[in-house]
């Protein structure tokens, strides 16, 4: 894993307009895990070097025990 640094944050203006590609609902930005979380779809989309990877086949399925 690459360490988190200022350069790996998602552009704040981009963050404002990004939604879940499946449900079109809002995303939560988990800065610690570098993921954009769609509660509605139960998916976590990875952010790599500040670039959100908004692909269902690359997303992590949220576990039942995750808040």
């Amino acid at each position, binding site marked *: 894993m690459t360490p988190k640094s200022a350069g790996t944050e998602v552009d704040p*203006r981009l963050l404002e*307009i990004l939604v879940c590609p499946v449900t079109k609902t809002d995303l939560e930005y988990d800065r610690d895990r570098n993921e954009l979380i769609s509660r509605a779809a139960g998916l976590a989309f990875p952010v790599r070097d500040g*670039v959100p990877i*908004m*692909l269902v086949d690359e997303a992590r399925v949220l576990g039942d025990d995750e808040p």
Partner: protein
Amino acid sequence: MHAGVTVTGRPPTTPSEVPQLFDRRAGRRRLARCARWEPPDLLCELVEALLERLDELQESSEACLLLGARHGSIVRLVQRRHRVNDLTVLAPDPACLANAPGAIGDEEFLPFADEAFDTVLAPLALHRVNDLPGTLVQIRRLLRPGGLFLASLPAEETLCELREALLEAEAAATGGATLRVPPFADVQTLGNLLPRAGFTMPIADIDRRQLVFDGVGALLRALGRAGERGGLQATVSRRLSRPTFRQACRLYEARYRHAGGGIAASFDLVTLTGRVPPGPTA
């Protein structure tokens, strides 16, 4: 059409009953691999043409979304236009973003909020989606009132010579044929999809060209470097045997020899223009 040619292998259907002709994941990976090469001249030309039309039609475009940014140089072409101030890019691979703000995604599952953009540009981005009507509805929703959508895509008789040669050679060898060159919509159908998706003032114009290649091999190499080979679902396209492929090349080269040498290939390129009505949309 050729009598006796049947298309075997039914594509699977999703719950929404949209045939899944294209393997979107494989297609995206193919485009990502092509990103390191120079983009095809034709793609650059189509991007320039869309930007020119944007200049004609839109006084200013604050927020612009570029779909199908398959090369960094395409992003830079759009960035150079001073009227595009705030560019967001959807690309198949991070290498294609050219440091512009953007995301990696699938044009069929757009990850952007409603009314986020004034302009959506889609140069050669939509001809391999499985659900084009649904994708157009998604694009319309991304646009603000008064927003503009511009796309270019291959249509109609594009690569018809190659399709014919492959179908005929395969049918002669096996008695059936699978899909090899993807089907392309006709210009009227494309034009009709725009109002169905909620666009007004729809325009669909077509530019018919014959491009010349040294041979079938050269044509396939050019398509491969553009990321435009394969990408069909394995269920609808089986591998062709070498002798059958050679027979297809012979058929093509015998029938579509170009007068000045080489072979001719049709490219029918459609430009779509659609607007979102000013004021509140339904």
